Structures are given as structure tokens and as C-alpha cells.
């Protein structure tokens, strides 16, 4: 976390047991104000459990967490107006229209109903506002979920697998929306299966495996730390050569090719977040 910024989420030795199953095993991290934080992991790694506890919908077995400075157990009611969540499931009232949905939640949060139309415009659903939600496409429903989660202008927005099942265009629109929220200073807590998405959106990511955080840093640092330090060089004879950047002999070879003007392209092989995850968790997502 950037030390100059106020922590919006703090998690200290958080543990959650469901009977004999240890869903979370003493995780600790913090999320700064305005940061986009990604929690990555397999199904059952404990991502949704973490969100459930941070949003006050489940009690930790032990440990402590705060959101916006309030304890998630003792001060749950104070947290509710300050946060919101885009659920993994498209849990919408299918018989209501898009506008009715947002007006209902505006009433619940005690904000003016005009906020509904602002949000419909923000997510590009103004034209479909009068249609029942059951007639919406999956992408439209996801945008409505985002709009619903923004009704109360949350200081911390939790996104639980927000692009799962979306077509590439809808997923890109959603990612653009998250970037817009980051620019506006909203703290975003994201769980996702998609490593590219985490790489593109997150300031920092944490890898969760079997209830434990196995790595936490910026995507770049993680890739540098766990990725390969190598490059693929394409020469004028159309042959590809892999050179290790930390090997003096390879460095000499590369320098020779460059001196002779034989290099057509060089591609660094810094690795992806997926490579990092495989290195840490032993299997891909």
C-alpha cells in the first residue's frame, strides 16, 4: 500500500471456518483510498468469503477487519451506507424495469430518485430504462448491477467476478467503467479469474491460495519477481533465438547480432500474472 494514502480497508489475521473447513487462514492486507485492489485465486480459494466478511454479511471466526475505518462486525451498520457490491450473480428483480430497480435502491439509500437517471446514462441504459430487466441481455444486466452498486456513491466498491460470462465488448465496457471510477477516487476491491483483467485494472493484486495470501504486490513487481528474465530475438535469417538477460554469454551474443545489424525484432519474456500464479499455486486458474 502507498504509505501516503489513508487505508480504506484493513484486514488483520482474518480467519473463517465453516465447520471443519478453513476457508480463510489468517490473511492480512490493506487497501488504500482510491486504489484498485485485486484478489485472485481459484474457485473456493476464499475470495467471496473475504468479500462477504468485508461487506458485513459473514462474521470472521477470528481476526479483525475495518472498512472506511469501521469494524466490520461491531460497526456494520455504519459501513453499509459507505460501501456497495457488484455480486457474482446477476441478482436483479426481473419483473421491474431498469429505472424502477434504480429508483427502488435510491429510496433505500435515501438518495434523490434523479440519481437513477444519472446512473442509467452513465452505464448506457437510458434507452432501455423502461424495459423489464428480464428482457435485458447479460451485458445490460451487468451494467445495471454496476449502476445499482453506484446508487449510494460508495467510498469502497466491491466487485465479485464482474466480467464473468460477459462477451468481450461488454467486458471491455465494464473495465472502462472501473477505470473511470478509479479516476473519480473510488476505492475498488475486485475479485476475478481473469489475469489480464487484473493486470489492466489493479494497482495491486493479492494471490489467494487455500485460504492464504501467497503473494501481494503490484502486477509489474510480481511479474518481474516471478517471471523469466529473457527475450526472443528474431534475426534476418528468420530464426528465433531465446536469450537470458542475466546471462553474460547471451548478452554478448545479442550485442554481436546487433552490431552486425541482424536483429529484426526483440520481444521481452517478462511473464504474465498467470505465470506468476502458476509458479505460486502450482496450477493455472
Amino acid at each position, binding site marked *: 500500500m502507498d504509505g501516503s494514502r489513508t487505508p480504506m480497508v484493513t484486514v488483520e489475521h482474518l480467519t473463517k471456518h465453516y465447520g471443519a473447513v478453513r476457508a480463510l487462514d489468517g490473511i492480512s492486507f490493506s487497501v488504500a483510498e482510491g486504489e484498485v485492489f485485486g484478489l485472485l485465486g481459484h474457485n473456493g480459494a476464499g475470495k467471496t468469503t473475504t468479500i462477504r466478511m468485508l*461487506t458485513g*454479511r459473514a*462474521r470472521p471466526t477470528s481476526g479483525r477487519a475495518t472498512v472506511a475505518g469501521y469494524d466490520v462486525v461491531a460497526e456494520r451498520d455504519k459501513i*453499509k*451506507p459507505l*460501501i*456497495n*457490491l457488484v*455480486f457474482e*450473480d446477476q*441478482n*436483479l*428483480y*426481473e*419483473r*421491474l424495469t431498469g429505472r*424502477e430497480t434504480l429508483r*427502488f*435502491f435510491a*429510496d*433505500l*439509500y*435515501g438518495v434523490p430518485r434523479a440519481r437513477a437517471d444519472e446512473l442509467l446514462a452513465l452505464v448506457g441504459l437510458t434507452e432501455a430504462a423502461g424495459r423489464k430487466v428480464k428482457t435485458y441481455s447479460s451485458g445490460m444486466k451487468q451494467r445495471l448491477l454496476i449502476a*445499482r452498486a453506484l446508487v*449510494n456513491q460508495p467510498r469502497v466498491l466491491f466487485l465479485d467476478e464482474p466480467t464473468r460470462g460477459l462477451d468481450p465488448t461488454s467486458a471491455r465496457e465494464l473495465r472502462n467503467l472501473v477505470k473511470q471510477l478509479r479516476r473519480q477516487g473510488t476505492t475498488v476491491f475486485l475479485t476475478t479469474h481473469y489475469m489480464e483483467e487484473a493486470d489492466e485494472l489493479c494497482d495491486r493484486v493479492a494471490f489467494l491460495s487455500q485460504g492464504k495470501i501467497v503473494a501481494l504486490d503490484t502486477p509489474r513487481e510480481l511479474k518481474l519477481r516471478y517471471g523469466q528474465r529473457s527475450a526472443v530475438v528474431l534475426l534476418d535469417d528468420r530464426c528465433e533465438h531465446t536469450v537470458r538477460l542475466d546471462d553474460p554469454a547471451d548478452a554478448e551474443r545479442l550485442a554481436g547480432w546487433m552490431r552486425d545489424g541482424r536483429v529484426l525484432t526483440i520481444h521481452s519474456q517478462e511473464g504474465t500474472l498467470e505465470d506468476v500464479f502458476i509458479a505460486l499455486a502450482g496450477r493455472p486458474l
Partner: protein
Amino acid sequence: MRLKLILPIFRKDVRDAIRDARVLVAILVPLGLGLLYGQIFDDEAPKLSINIAYTAAETTTLPDALRTAAGPAVELTVSTFDSAAAVREQVDAEKADLGLVIPAGFDAAVRQGRSPELTVIRTSATNSSADFALSLLDSTLRTMAGQTPPATIQTDVITASDQGAGAIFEDLGPRRYVLLAMVVMLIAMIGMLVVPVILAEEAEKKTLDALVMVASYTDVIAAKALVGLVYMVISLGFLLSLTGLSPANPALFVAAVLALSVTMIAFGLLLGAFFKNANQLNTWSGFIILPVIAPVFLVGLGMPRPVELLLKVLPTSQAGQLLINALSGRDYFGNVWLGFVVILAWGLAAFLLLARLLQRREA
């Protein structure tokens, strides 16, 4: 519980739930049955119908005396014919239950105690109307003769459980009796079907998760209870106004309806909290609702003692008894307070279970 959260949920549900076919059917079925039965049945209980054909050689007061003796409970028709043959023809064709051939000077002879001959014509077939008419004739002639009856018959109104359904039917009429059952059915259907379907659907579609991001489970439950109550008030209003059912004791009627509504809603919320799926609830609803509604159809029918004892501890049968008292304005079943205690005790038990369930969920 916060009203500012309960009211928006309530407003949403009142509009949204009625668009659900399951909810609509649960309300319309008892309402429709009520309207149908309201048209089919009469307010009056079926009366004993007796047709008497007679011929008299001169003017006689016997027909009028028979009408007086029959009273309002019997639908007595007395028709005069020109000859004994015509009277016989009426009886033979079963157009009359009894035929009388009254000779000249009959009335005067009876008054003077001269035992004039009166010919009675009836068929050999079993005919309860004819039997009743004969017994009526005997007492009427004694009165005409100025004889003092051997005993004065005093009718004593006793409670319905001892008296059977006859008295209730006679007093309420089958139409009001069936409509009363429909009132209980409507309350039970809304309380134990509509309310849990609304709640279970929230859990099934996971919209409940979105609600509890801002409200508490208790707020949500309170809103659903309010929705059930409002649906009941509106539906009952329709049923009462469309059928013209008006209780003789409106205060008792409203109190009984309210007590039963609260109890049925409590059970409905409990069911909604148990079932996580509205379709599952719909599948099991028939089994659940039948034992709840059935007792009201047994009230006052003179069941065997174990059944009568069971009816005394069930909320719907107690509500049925209170509603019969309220509709008729009579105290058929006595001990009104015990009825309320039984109904509300069930409601309290359901609410306590629900509170326990909510506590565990909140934890």
C-alpha cells in the same frame, strides 16, 4: 427495524409481487371461489317444503290454521280444488304431498267437539313432508277444537357443538357459511403462500443479498409481513363488497380476521425462511396448506370427540368459530377469548421461531 427501509421494500413488493403468476393465483383462487359460491348458494337455509291440496264444501279456516302452525321454518303451500277427485289426482301425480277433503260444516263441528270426518289422501310412498303435514294437522285440529295442549313445548337454543351444523346452517344460511370458509381460505392462502413465495424468491434469486447490503433481515421480514397484510385487506375488501357479506358483529369479525392474519403471516414468514426456493415451496404448498384450511370446513359439523378436541386447539377452526359468531351475531361457540388466545398463541410461537432463525442468520 427502520421504517425508512421497510417502506421502500414494502412499496416495491406490493407492485412487483402481484406480477408473479403464483401470487396472483393464490389470491384469485379463494376470491374467485368466494364469488362463485356466493352466486350458487342462497342466504336462506333450505326449508321443508309441503304442498297440501284440499277441497272444501264451504269456507273453512283450516288452511290458514295450518299455515300459522307451520311457522316460518316450513314452506307451506295450500291449494284449493273443486272436487275430491281433483285433489286425489294432485296427490297421485305427486304435485301435492297431502290431500284433504273437508266436508260441509267442518269448522263448526270441530268447535263443538262433534268429531267430523276429514278425509286425508296420501300415497303409500315414504314422504317426510306428508308425515310432517299429518303431525301438523293433528295439533292444528286440537287448537281449532279449543283443546289445551297436553304440554307446552319450549325450544331451548343450545351451543352448536351439541347442536350440530343444522342450527348454524339455519341461522347463517349455506351461502354465508361457505363465504366464511372462503374468508379463512383467502387469509391462509395469502399468509402461507403469497408471503413465503415473496420471501423465498428473494433468497432464490439472491436479491436478498442486495437488500441486506443496506437493510437488515428484520427490515426485510417486516416489509414482507406488511405486504401480506395489505394484500389481505384489499382482497377481503373485494370479497366482502362483491358478495355483500356483512357481519352482525363487525368488531368481532375484524378482530378475528386480524388475529388470524397475523398468525398466518407468521407461519408464512417461517416457511419462507425455511424454503430457499419459491418453486419448491409451491410444490409443497398443497400439503402444507390443506391441514391449515381444512379445519374451518369442519366447524360446527358435529365431529367425533377427538376431532372436536383437535379443532379446539387449531387456529383456523378457532377463527372459523369466531367468524361464525361475528357473522350471526350469536354466541354459538362461547368463550371468545379462548379463541383469540389459541390463534395468537400459534402466531406467537411462529414469530418466536422466526426470531430465532433470524438471530442465527444475522450472526
